[in-house]
C-alpha cells in the first residue's frame, strides 16, 4: 500500500495532462469529473496510505522510484518520504483540495476557461504533493516552483484584465526572490554535505555543525528567505493581497490552505537546521509576530471582502511562524491544518457571497445577507469563530498551543506572547467587522436573489464547517518527527493566562459589535482627526510596503531598463563604427578626383622618400 505513494501526485498530473491535451474540447461534466475526480482519487489513496502508515507504527517510510539525475555525488531521486508531517500535509492538500475542486465545479460553471482552470488546479495539486512528499530538497524545489507557476497561472486566470496579469507576475516574481535565496541555500548545503537528501542533511548537520555557529545560521537564513517568500511573511508579504485577483477557489486552495503554508512546512521540515541557529529561529518568531500585527492592522482598514481574508491569512501564517520560532513545531503544523479548514471555509463562503452579489467584493455594498444567504452566513459564522479562536472551535486549540509555547520561552517569550494576544484582539475586530457589515445591518443597494449553485457548492462548505468546528480535536501524528526538538509537549498554563487568551478575542468581537453591529460607537468620530485618517491610509496601503518596494526596486529597475534599452555596449560598438566612418571621410576627402592633385601627391611622396633617403 505504502509503495503506491507515487500515485498520489500522478493522478492529478494525469488529470492535468488529459485536460491540456484535449485543450477545451471535452464537455464540462467530463472536465469536472477528471478535474475533481483525480484529486478525489488521490485523497482516497492518501487516506488509505495514512491508515496503513499509522497502523504500521513506523516512524517513516521511503519509496524510491528512479534517480532523477546523477552527477558525481549529486544524486537526487524521485523518492518519496512519508512521515507524520508529510502525512498531515498530504491529507490536508488532497482533502481540502478535493473539497475545493468540487466547489469549483459549481463556481466556475459559467466560465469559458473551465477546462483550463481545472488543468491548472490539477497541476497545482500534483506539484504541491511533490513538495511535501519529496525526500530531497531538489524534489521539494521542483514542487516549490511548480506551485509558484500554478499560482501565477491561476491569479492571472482572467487574463484580459492587465491588473490581473500584474498581480500574477508580482506574485511570481516576489516569491521567486525568496526561491532564489532558497536555491542558494541549497547550493550551500550541498557544498558542505554533498547531498540534498533532507534526512541525511539533518543528521549530518547535527553532527558537523555546532549550535550557534555561522554556517547553520546562514543556511537557515537562506531557507527562511524561501519560506517568507512563499508564505507571504515580512518582508516579502506584499504579493498575497494582490493575488486575490484570481478566482475565489484559487484563493481558498492556494492562497489560504496549501501553498502559502509551504514555508511553514519547509521550516518544520528543516527544523534541525533552525535549532542549530537559535538566532535565526528567534528571528522567525519575530518575523511572524511583526507580520501578524501589521497584517492585523491592515485587515481592519480594508473594504474588499477577499483582501480582508487575504490579510488575515498573512496574519495567521504569522502565528505559525511565531510558533515555529519558539520551537512549537507541532503546534504550528496543527495551526496550519486548522487554518486550512477554516480559511478555506471562509474563502469558499466569500466566493458564494461574491457570486450571489454578481461579483461585487466591497463589503460596504453588502448587508443583511444572513437571511438571503443562509449557507454562506453559516460558513462565515463558523469560519470567523474559528479564526478568532472562539473557545472549542478548531482555531482556539491551535492558536492556544502556539501562544502557550511562546510564553514558556525564556527571555523574550512574554513579549512574543503579548504580541500574539494583541494580534488575536485585532483578529476579533476585523473578522467580526466583516461579519456585521456583510450579514447584519441593512441592505446597501445591491440586489441578491439568494444562494448560487447547487449541492456541489454547498456540500464542501458543510464538510468544512464541521472540520472547522471539531478540527481542534484531531490529533496530528507528528511527535516522531519533532521528537528530539520539542522540549515541552504539555503546557501548564496558569488560569490567568488562559483566561486572558480566551477573553481578548471576545473583547475584540465586542468592539466590532459596538462599531458595526449596534452602531453604539461611530467610525466617523474615530476617523475625524487627521492623524487617524493618515493612519488609516497608511494601514490600508499595507504599511506602505508596496510604495517602498516600488521605489526601492521596481522603479530603479524600470528606469535602468529604459535608459539602457539600446544596450550601451552595443552603442560602444556603434561609436567604433562612427569613428571609423569619420576617419574614412577624412581620407576620402583627399580623393579630390583632380589629376593634378594626384600628381602633386605623387611628387610629395617622391620628395618625402628622397628626404628619407638623404637623411638616413
Amino acid at each position, binding site marked *: 500500500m505504502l509503495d503506491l505513494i507515487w500515485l498520489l501526485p500522478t493522478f492529478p498530473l494525469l488529470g492535468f495532462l488529459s485536460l491540456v491535451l484535449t485543450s477545451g474540447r471535452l464537455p464540462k461534466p467530463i472536465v469536472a469529473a477528471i478535474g475533481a475526480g483525480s484529486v478525489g482519487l488521490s485523497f482516497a489513496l492518501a487516506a488509505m496510505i495514512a491508515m496503513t502508515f499509522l497502523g504500521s507504527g513506523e516512524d517513516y517510510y521511503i519509496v524510491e522510484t528512479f534517480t532523477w539525475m546523477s552527477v558525481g555525488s549529486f544524486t537526487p531521486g524521485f523518492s518519496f518520504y512519508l512521515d507524520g508531517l508529510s502525512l498531515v500535509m498530504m491529507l490536508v492538500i488532497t482533502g481540502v483540495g478535493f473539497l475545493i475542486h468540487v466547489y469549483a465545479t459549481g463556481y466556475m460553471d459559467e466560465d469559458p476557461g473551465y477546462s483550463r482552470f481545472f488543468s491548472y488546479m490539477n497541476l497545482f495539486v500534483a506539484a504541491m504533493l511533490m513538495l511535501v512528499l519529496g525526500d530531497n530538497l531538489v524534489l521539494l524545489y521542483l514542487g516549490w516552483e511548480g506551485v509558484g507557476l500554478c499560482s501565477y497561472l491561476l491569479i492571472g486566470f482572467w487574463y484580459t484584465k492587465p491588473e490581473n496579469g500584474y498581480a500574477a507576475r508580482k506574485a511570481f*516574481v516576489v516569491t521567486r526572490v525568496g526561491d532564489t535565496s532558497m536555491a542558494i541555500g541549497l547550493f550551500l548545503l550541498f557544498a558542505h554535505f554533498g547531498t540534498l537528501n533532507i534526512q541525511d542533511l539533518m543528521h549530518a548537520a547535527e553532527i558537523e555543525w555546532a549550535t550557534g555557529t555561522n554556517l547553520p545560521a546562514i543556511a537557515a537564513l537562506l531557507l527562511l528567505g524561501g519560506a517568507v517568500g512563499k508564505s507571504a511573511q515580512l518582508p516579502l508579504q506584499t504579493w498575497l493581497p494582490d493575488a486575490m485577483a484570481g478566482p475565489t477557489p484559487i484563493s481558498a486552495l492556494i492562497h489560504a490552505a496549501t501553498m502559502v503554508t509551504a514555508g511553514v512546512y519547509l521550516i518544520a521540515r528543516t527544523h534541525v537546521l533552525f535549532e542549530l541557529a537559535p538566532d535565526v529561529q528567534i528571528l522567525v518568531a519575530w518575523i511572524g509576530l511583526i507580520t501578524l500585527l501589521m497584517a492585523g492592522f491592515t485587515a481592519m482598514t480594508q473594504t474588499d471582502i477577499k483582501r480582508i481574508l487575504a490579510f488575515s491569512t498573512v496574519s495567521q501564517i504569522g502565528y505559525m511562524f511565531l510558533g515555529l520560532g519558539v520551537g512549537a513545531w507541532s503546534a504550528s503544523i496543527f495551526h496550519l491544518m486548522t487554518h486550512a479548514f477554516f480559511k478555506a471555509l471562509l474563502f469558499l463562503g466569500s466566493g458564494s457571497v461574491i457570486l450571489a452579489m454578481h461579483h461585487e467584493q466591497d463589503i460596504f455594498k453588502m448587508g443583511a445577507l444572513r437571511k438571503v444567504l443562509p449557507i454562506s452566513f453559516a460558513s462565515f459564522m463558523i469560519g470567523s469563530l474559528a479564526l478568532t479562536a472562539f473557545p472549542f472551535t478548531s482555531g482556539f486549540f491551535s492558536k492556544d498551543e502556539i501562544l502557550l509555547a511562546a510564553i514558556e520561552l525564556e527571555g523574550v517569550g512574554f513579549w512574543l506572547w503579548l504580541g500574539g494576544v494583541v494580534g488575536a484582539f485585532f483578529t476579533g475586530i476585523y473578522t467580526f467587522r466583516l461579519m456585521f457589515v456583510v450579514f447584519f445591518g441593512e441592505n446597501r443597494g445591491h440586489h441578491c436573489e439568494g444562494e448560487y449553485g447547487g449541492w456541489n457548492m454547498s456540500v464542501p462548505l458543510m464538510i468544512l464547517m464541521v472540520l472547522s468546528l471539531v478540527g481542534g480535536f484531531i490529533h496530528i501524528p507528528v511527535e516522531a518527527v519533532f521528537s528530539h526538538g520539542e522540549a515541552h509537549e504539555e503546557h501548564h498554563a496558569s488560569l490567568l493566562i488562559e483566561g486572558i487568551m480566551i477573553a481578548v478575542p471576545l473583547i475584540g468581537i465586542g468592539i466590532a459589535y459596538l462599531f458595526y453591529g449596534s452602531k453604539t460607537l461611530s467610525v466617523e468620530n474615530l476617523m475625524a482627526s487627521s492623524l487617524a485618517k493618515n493612519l488609516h491610509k497608511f494601514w490600508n496601503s499595507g504599511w506602505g510596503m508596496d510604495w517602498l518596494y516600488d521605489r526601492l526596486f521596481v522603479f530603479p529597475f524600470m528606469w535602468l531598463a529604459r535608459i539602457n534599452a539600446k544596450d550601451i555596449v552595443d552603442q560602444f560598438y556603434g561609436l567604433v563604427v562612427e569613428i571609423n566612418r569619420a576617419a574614412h571621410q577624412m581620407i576620402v576627402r583627399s580623393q579630390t578626383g583632380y589629376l593634378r592633385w594626384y600628381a602633386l601627391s605623387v611628387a610629395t611622396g617622391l620628395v618625402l622618400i628622397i628626404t628619407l633617403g638623404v637623411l638616413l
Partner: protein
Amino acid sequence: MILVILIALLFAGGVLAWMSERVNPNLPRSIALATVLLDLLIMLTLLGSGDSGQWIASLEASWIPRFGISFYLAVDGLSLLLILLTAFLGIIAIGSAWDEITERAGFFYFNLLWTLAGVVGVFTALDLFLFFFFWEVMLIPMYFIIAIWGHENKNYAAMKFFIFTQVTGMLMLVSILVLAYFHYVQAGVFSFNYHDLLNVSFTSRVEMWVMLGFFIAFATKLPSVPIHSWLPDAHSQAPTAGSVILAGILLKTGAYGLIRFAVPLFPAASMEFAPIAMTLAAISILYCAKVAFAQHDIKRLIAYTSVSHMGFVTLGVYAWNEQALQGAVMTMLAHGLSAAALFMLAGGLQHRIHTRSMPDMGGFWAKVPRMAIVALFFSVAALGMPGLGNFIGEFLALLGAFQANIWLTVVSAFGLIFASVYSLWVIQKVFQGEYNSSKFDDSHLSDLSRREMLYFGAMMIGLVWMGMYPQSFLDLSAGTLSGLLSATADAAVAVAEVAQ
C-alpha cells in the same frame, strides 16, 4: 569513415538542393529534409556503439603533411550529443522555413545545409587547422542566410555578425598558429593535432595570451558580455530558420570550444582566468536579462535572453567541476531547444501579423490558444522551471559554480529572478491583456498548424525528457567531461596553490 559521410552528406545535399530548384521550386526543401533526416539516422547508429569517455568513432588522414595538418575527425559522448542536437534542430529549422522561404529556396537550403555541415565539422574536428576551417565554413553560409532572406535591416545585421565573428576568429587563428609553432619548437615538427598540442608547455604569460585568443573567439560566439552585441541584431533580422540555427546550434559551438579547447589546452591559464570569465558570465546573466526586459522587438528580447542563459554556460565551464560542466552541457542542450522554439514562435507571429513590436500585440490567448500554451511552456522553460531541461542545466551549473566561487554564484542566481521578470512579461504583452487589432493586420492570424504543432511537440517532449530524466544525456557526456577534468587536475591544483 562514418564521420566523413555525415559531413559529406550535408555538403552534397546542399549542392543537390540548390540544383534541384530548377526542376521544381518545392524540391529543395524536401531534399534538405531528407538529407538531414538521413544524417540524424546515421548519428543514431553511433549511439549504441562504444563506451562513453572513449572515442566512439574517429578518422585520421593526412592532409597537408608538411605542416602536420591532418584530416582528423572524432566523436565522443559530448560531440555526439551536440551533433545530435545539430541534426535535430536542423530538421526543425527546415520545418520552420518550409512555407516561409519561397524566394531562391534552392540557395537557401544550400546555405542551411552547409552551415550544418560546418557545425558538425566543428563538433567533430580534432585537428585545430581543420577545426578552424569548419569554423569559417559555418560562418559564410550563415552570413548569406541573414543578408539575403533577412528582414528590414538585414545588411547591417549580417555585416555586424560577420565582422564580429571574423575578427575574433582571426585572433583564434593566430593563437592556433602560435600553438603549432610552440609545438614545433618543443617537438621539432609541426602539428595541429589536438592530442599533440595538449602536451605543449608554455611560460604562464604566453599561455595567458594564447588562451585569450581562443577565449575571445569562443566568447564572441557564445556570446558573452561585452562582445555580445552582434547577436540581437543578427537574430532580429535573420529569417526564422536562421535564428533557430543561430540560437540553437551556432552559439553552442562557442561553449563547445571552451570545454574542448580553451580550457584543456591551457589549463593553468584558464584556471587563473576563471574568476574573470565567471565575472563576465555573471554580468552577462544579469545585464542581458535587464536589457531584454526593455526591448520592444520580441526577437531582440529573446536574443538578449539567449545571452543571459549562455552566461550560465560560461559560469559552469569555468567552475570546471563535474556538476558545473554537466550543467553547462545540459544548459546548452536545453537552451538549444527552448530558444529555438521561442524564435520559431516569434517568427511565426511575424509571419502572421507582420510585426515584431510587442506593444502592438496583446490578448492573443483567445485568438491562438494553442500558440499561447506553447509559448507559455517555452517561456516557463526559459525561466528555469524545475521539471524542464533548462532547470537541470542552470541548477547544476550554479550548484557546481557555488563550489568554485560563492559570491559570483550568488550574484548569478539573481538571474533566476530576472528571467522570471522578462519571461512573464512576454507572455503578458503578447498573449494576455485586451485584444486590439488596430495596429496590425490580423487577417492571417491563425493558430498553429498541425505541422507546426509537430515541431513544437517534439521540442516540448525533448525538454520534458531533459527535465525529468536527464540521466540519458548526462551519461553520454559524463565520460568525456571526467576525462577532461582528470587531465587538467594537476593544473587546477597548481593554480589553487599559487592562489593560496
